[in-house]
């Protein structure tokens, strides 16, 4: 297997992946150092300075409550990233295990779970999320659960596909010949080899998850005011589109740049790790 440094060297030669990784790294760093960059609190209101256009004190202007838009965009990155990451980690883990067991074990479990996944995939992610939020009620946790649930069929289908070819490899046969248990082979030999597919899938799913999370907050089903979440900020900015367009511009740009970074990184990683998927 290629060393980590060898992979990094190849990665650094892929312009798409490098640009994507840089954008994602900048977003993460900005989210982490938000309290040091901004001297305002994201939820601190100042009615005296409401709807101020961008100026030296407020580079992105202020919103209808006099809150600094730059501060809210920076803190918003923390919420948007955590929602997307939380949902993808939970859904990805469950989906990977289901796909691994279904693909490796085959039989009735495989056919039943894959039919269930087909039904889940028949629902667009936003419809699925709305159904889940109807049951759980609006809020950040519900969005994380909704993202996790729409990730499960995607991961299980992808991992199952990879496992079906991996389980026919000679090293699996060799492991069986030296007396390894089937569970041991599945988790110690097959699972690590699905890593390239998982890495690519995760970067692309994070982008979709961010879009779904912000869409849900925009329609009032995700983060609730005054939480500084990008979709929720855009929802409350709609009423001021005519008088204060900057309140709508910056959170949207933040979503677009983050999703662009994740997509570029995902595409670049896919070209490196799984060139068959390029088409």
């Amino acid at each position, binding site marked *: 297997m290629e060393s980590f440094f060898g992979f990094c060297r190849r990665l650094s030669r892929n312009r798409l992946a490098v640009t994507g990784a840089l954008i994602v790294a900048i977003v993460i760093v900005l989210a982490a150092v938000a309290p040091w960059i901004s001297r305002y609190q994201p939820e601190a209101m100042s009615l005296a300075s409401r709807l101020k256009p961008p100026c030296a004190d407020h580079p992105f202007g202020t919103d209808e409550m006099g809150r600094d838009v730059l501060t809210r965009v920076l803190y918003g990155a923390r919420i948007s990233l955590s929602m997307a990451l939380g949902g993808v980690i939970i859904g990805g883990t469950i989906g990977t295990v289901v796909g691994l067991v279904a693909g490796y074990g085959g039989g009735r479990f495989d056919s039943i779970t894959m039919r269930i996944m087909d039904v889940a995939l028949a629902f667009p992610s936003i419809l699925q999320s709305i159904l889940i939020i109807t049951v759980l009620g609006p809020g950040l946790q519900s969005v994380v659960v909704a993202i996790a649930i729409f990730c499960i069929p995607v991961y299980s289908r992808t991992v199952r596909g990879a496992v079906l070819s991996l389980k026919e490899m000679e090293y699996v046969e060799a492991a069986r010949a030296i007396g390894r248990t089937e569970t041991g082979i599945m988790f110690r030999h097959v699972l690590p080899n699905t890593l390239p597919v998982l890495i690519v899938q995760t970067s692309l799913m994070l982008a979709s998850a961010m879009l779904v999370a912000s869409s849900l907050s925009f329609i009032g089903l995700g983060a609730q005011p005054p939480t500084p979440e990008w979709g929720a900020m855009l929802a409350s900015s709609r009423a001021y589109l005519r008088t204060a367009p900057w309140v709508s511009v910056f959170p949207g740009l933040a979503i*677009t740049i983050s999703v*662009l970074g994740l997509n570029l990184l995902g595409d670049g990683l896919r070209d490196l790790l799984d060139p068959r998927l390029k088409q």
Partner: protein
Amino acid sequence: MGAYALKRILQLIPVLLAVTIVVFTVMKVIPGDPARMLAGELAPLEQVEAIRKELFLDKPIIVQYWHYLSGLLRGDLGYSYRSKRPVSEEIAARYPNTVKLALVSICIAIVLGIGTGILSATKQGSWFDTVSRLVSMLGVTVPTFWLGLMLMLIFAVRLGLLPTMYTGSPKDIILPAFTLGLNSTTFIARMTRSCMLEVLRQDYVRTARAKGISERIVVLKHALRNALPNVVTVVGLQMGSLLGGAIIVESVFAWPGIGLMMVEAVAFRDHPVVCGTVLVAASALVIVNLIVDLLYAVLDPRISYR
């Protein structure tokens, strides 16, 4: 072809049944008593019990599902908690608006997407190709609701050319349809470009050119026809994202379709309306996918023999 169509239609039944099971399960796990919600907070217990009996809520779950399913076949989706009217009537009043929006959007996406894809492929490496590929990349990253707000800011607020919200005028559909269609345009353009590039390298295209056939006919008649099956698949897949996107776009522009109805129903905890609209939207998607599959077989007859 007939046997293939019949097989695909029969395959539709279990999927639709599964969709009803999902929606029914969600209705059952939603907290709260549907009979109490319909009767009202202050209604006497006898009235609540009467409604419970009428809706078969006192029966075992399998019996309830059977009544739900037979009700669906008669077009009965239950009653709205808010308006107390049948959900099917409310959906019937607003569904045509969503269909209109989706159709106009997909038409925009097909015309712009295929047109851009063909031009990009025939002028590979030109500035047009570079710009269209850049726009395609951005098109999949820009959130639909933000794109809608920005188009509204430019064309409605700044230039005053179009209305910001639904007013009943024919001009109302332009901004929502473009917002909804632009994302699909980028996918269709990407697929058309890559399929056309592949087809344009084939021997029969070279032969057609060697025979002296004009470039326009080579591209539109010989190459496009063979690139079309893959493009149709993407168009079909886009119908799913259009449906999802319609929920958001309808909310941005207050477009009175079932997407906006669904969002309002979630906010008002009007669960029968949420489940009814989700069921209709998911079933519509499954049926659209079937139509795309059949169309695919018409465009590429080898499919029906596999």
